[in-house]
């Protein structure tokens, strides 16, 4: 039986991380979930709105929430951690501030009601891993894969009091999914540290320092890849890894997979159809070496 969930891809899944959009749809469809992209969504404002304008940081995601509420669906999946965080924070803020909600609703064709449940991808995937559903759809075990599950900042830490779905300091969602597919996620210390994605362009040295710490620990703990759910973390650690490695004298390079790539590989999907060949740090080599593709 197919179920429908509302879906907010956000700007990066329509641009540099279009591969994640493709993979989310493929993997979710195989789990009987149809992702219905909401109509005419706008940018959530990400880190920039919070740093420049408090009103817009709430109002931009609010317009999307109004559109999502109007679908009548009960849940919206938001893969990008930044979009997820901003949308959840906006929903929470508007539930506590009726005056602000009215002021924003005045401008909107679809008013925010605040009823739709805002979910990240792990909230959908983890129960299906624990129930054995994901492993049941898998055609191969991810043997030899030792991912450093990298959560970054915005999946578990919020600027206000919202319901956090995993352990704040030591989340386990990605480990649960990877383990259910036969991979052996490593235990490490930097899984919720910041990679500096929002600073990579405008404060590059800082962002390289942050990534070097993450890389060093992952390598020291014996990881052979990263796995992430956030397109901003994925792009940052993927695209700037060569620069980090050269600046800090690191020999190893670790592919940075999306969680959907690992599930898709286990499900037997074609890696090219999933666009695994579009990583800036090679991601195909390790899969071939481990005979997973």
């Amino acid at each position, binding site marked *: 039986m197919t179920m429908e969930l509302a879906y907010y891809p956000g*700007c*990066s899944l*329509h*641009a*540099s*991380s*279009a591969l994640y959009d493709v993979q989310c749809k493929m993997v979710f469809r195989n789990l009987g979930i149809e992702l219905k992209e909401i109509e*005419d969504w*706008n*940018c959530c*404002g*990400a*880190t*920039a*709105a*919070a*740093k*420049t*304008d*408090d*009103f*817009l*940081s*709430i*109002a*931009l995601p609010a*317009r999307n929430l109004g559109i999502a509420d109007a679908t009548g669906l009960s849940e919206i999946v938001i893969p990008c951690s930044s979009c997820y965080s901003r949308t959840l924070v906006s929903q929470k*803020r508007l539930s506590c501030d009726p005056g*602000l909600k009215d002021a*924003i609703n005045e*401008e*909107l*064709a679809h008013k925010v009601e605040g009823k739709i449940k805002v979910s990240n991808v792990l909230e959908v995937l983890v129960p299906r891993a624990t129930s054995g559903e994901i492993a049941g759809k898998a055609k191969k075990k991810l043997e030899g894969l030792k991912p450093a599950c990298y959560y970054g*900042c*915005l999946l*578990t*830490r*919020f*600027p*206000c009091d919202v319901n956090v779905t995993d352990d*704040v300091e030591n989340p386990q969602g990605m480990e649960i999914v990877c383990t259910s597919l036969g991979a052996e996620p490593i235990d490490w210390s930097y899984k919720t*540290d*910041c990679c*500096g994605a*929002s*600073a990579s*362009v*405008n*404060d*590059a040295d*800082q962002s390289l*320092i*942050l990534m070097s710490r993450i890389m060093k620990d992952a390598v020291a703990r014996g990881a052979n890849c990263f796995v992430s759910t956030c397109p901003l973390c994925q*792009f940052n650690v993927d*695209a700037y890894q060569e620069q980090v490695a050269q600046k800090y004298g690191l020999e190893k390079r670790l592919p940075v997979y999306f969680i959907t790539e690992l599930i898709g590989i286990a499900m037997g999907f074609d890696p090219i159809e999933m*666009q695994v*060949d*579009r*990583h*800036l740090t090679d991601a195909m080599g390790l899969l071939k070496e481990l005979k997973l593709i």
Partner: protein
Amino acid sequence: MEAKEQVMSAKTLQSEATDAKSLLQEVAEKSGQNLLACYQCRRCAAGCPVGEETGVTPDRLIRMVLLGDREEALNNLLVWKCVACYTCGTRCPNNIQTARITETLKQMSKAAHLEPLRPRIADFHNAFMQATEHMGRFNEIEGMRIYETKTTLKELKTGNFGAIIDEMKNQAKLGVSMMKKKRMHFKADQVKNKAEVKALYRKARQGKGA
């Protein structure tokens, strides 16, 4: 390394109680944070990923605001280099979210037309918001064009040609590798009902804000 020594200047120690009250009130109201609850345990400082580089850690920033040192509070490295990772606030035993305070101070600094200590950081986030206002969605190429124009004009004024060349080299290198891997998207993505997004921006400018 840009770490500087503890920033409590002599000026800080001389600040007037009246200044302190108004700065504290303003920051507390705008950020929604109870700065008075800080008892300087420095758990935030221990977890701050940029603390080593900024010298100013979240506890010290709170102290500056409490002491009413407006100039230092609006213009120190933590305000600009804070990556909004929310580690300080998550670990604070008194629930003070200092990342909200740095966000607030950046906005106050902009409202007061102060020159940011790290202009590139301000330019980037302003460029992001400008690109989003234009199309309703953030297009990476448009955002980068606005950002590079802002920063290049500034570097040109100061005659810092080396910085311009370095920046162009870095961005060109990234751009080429993104194109090779088909990660660059040239087709502009946009909202149909741009008027609605623009209306929200208009409301923000009228200051009916959050």
